[in-house]
């Protein structure tokens, strides 16, 4: 494969990168070949230069989503006669279409702004005689019936909100302790666990991790280690075991 020399910043986000891949390959957005696109997506991440963690994590979340969809599609379909099973890709397609729609709108807006940007608005030039009757703003009237107690309540609400806001993404997980499991720590942990070992079963490795967050972070850590070349992953046959070889 030709060497990919990409900076992720050229893509506005994981959805942007996915749309780019879909268009480049002339894939049908309603029938995305998930195996192929996941491979290409991971290749991109692989070729990516070191980025800051914030940018990386957003792209990695999508990698995890793709792999999860891929695995769902590989699983034999359960024979449910009543309901038709939903395509595991449906949610992703919806997001992609919505994103594509706004991307289209933003390009339209861009064109419009170029045309509209050349008008000049005038400063106020009210004749002195008219302006002299200047209205006084009475702070007391403005405050009205508001009491210090009420202002105090407002301030307290704000402080509470600030605490709530700590992290809009992570706080959504609800039961997760902030910074409880750090990716950096997990990378070190897994690296030590597998050092010098070959053919470690992916399932066994992840199976030892308790808790959903632990699983997710462990998974991201494996992706990270793969990227940095500390390990390789192989799967010899369809549905076969995924095996990890440490390269250290």
């Amino acid at each position, binding site marked *: 494969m030709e060497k990919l020399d990409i900076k992720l910043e050229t893509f506005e986000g994981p959805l942007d990168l996915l749309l780019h891949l879909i268009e480049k390959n002339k894939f*049908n957005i*309603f029938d995305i070949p998930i195996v192929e696109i996941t491979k290409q997506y991971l290749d991109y991440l692989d070729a990516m230069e070191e980025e800051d963690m914030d940018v990386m994590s957003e792209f990695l979340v999508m990698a995890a989503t793709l792999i999860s969809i891929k695995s769902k599609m590989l699983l034999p379909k359960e024979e449910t006669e009543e309901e038709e099973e939903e395509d595991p890709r449906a949610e992703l397609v919806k997001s992609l279409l919505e994103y594509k729609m706004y991307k*289209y709108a*933003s390009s339209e*807006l861009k064109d419009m702004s170029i*045309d509209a940007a050349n008008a000049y608005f005038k400063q*106020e030039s009210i004749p002195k005689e008219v302006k002299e009757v200047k209205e006084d703003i009475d702070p007391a009237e403005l405050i009205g019936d508001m009491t210090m107690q009420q202002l105090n309540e407002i301030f307290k609400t704000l402080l509470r909100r600030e605490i709530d806001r700590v992290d809009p993404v992570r706080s959504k997980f609800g039961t997760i302790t902030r910074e409880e499991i750090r990716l950096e720590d997990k990378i070190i942990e897994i690296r030590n666990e597998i050092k010098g070992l070959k053919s470690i079963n992916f399932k066994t490795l992840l199976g030892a991790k308790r808790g959903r967050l632990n699983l997710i972070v462990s998974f991201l850590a494996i992706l990270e280690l793969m990227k940095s070349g500390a390990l390789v992953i192989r799967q010899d046959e369809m549905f076969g075991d995924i095996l990890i070889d440490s390269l250290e």
Partner: protein
Amino acid sequence: MSDMNYKAAIEAILFATGSAIEGSKLMVALGTEEEPVPKKVFNEAIKALMAEYESEDRGIRLIELDGKYQLCTKNDYYEVLGKIVNMPKKHTLTDVLLETLSIVAYKQPVTRAEIEKIRGVSCSHAVNRLVEYNLICEVGRLDAPGHPILFGTTDDFLRSFGISSMDELPDISPDKIEDFRRQAEEEAGIEVTT
């Protein structure tokens, strides 16, 4: 002043204030608090004025912004103006800002979290920048845990994109998605059944 020339009066007001003035305020000013100029009469005057400004002999135009009216120079004279007036610096809207802005424009009122969900990436920086540029503003709080801020577009947004109301935004209805679908089908050369 029953024989007031409404067109001239509107021109005088819009010229002196320089800002966008609500039609309802103009109607009161042209009449009285108790008896504003009838909407029909006002609309006729403003439409006639707008039409006159469009003449080639005029260097200014009258624009409508969401029920407000404002005078501004015609785009054609931007270059000449630049020789005399220090034109305000234009904000360069990067793709990130434009994407965020278009989501706010079409989905308003909208929270930061909703924008992030659509874009798939965080947007705090872009939102703050757009607030700073006065293209979007806080329009309220969502009645939900944490009471997140709701954002909407401003008059400056309309001005910057040369439209008078949100109705003039390019259509990106589900039909548009339908178009994308068709386009995608053509590209893939297959038929997709849904």
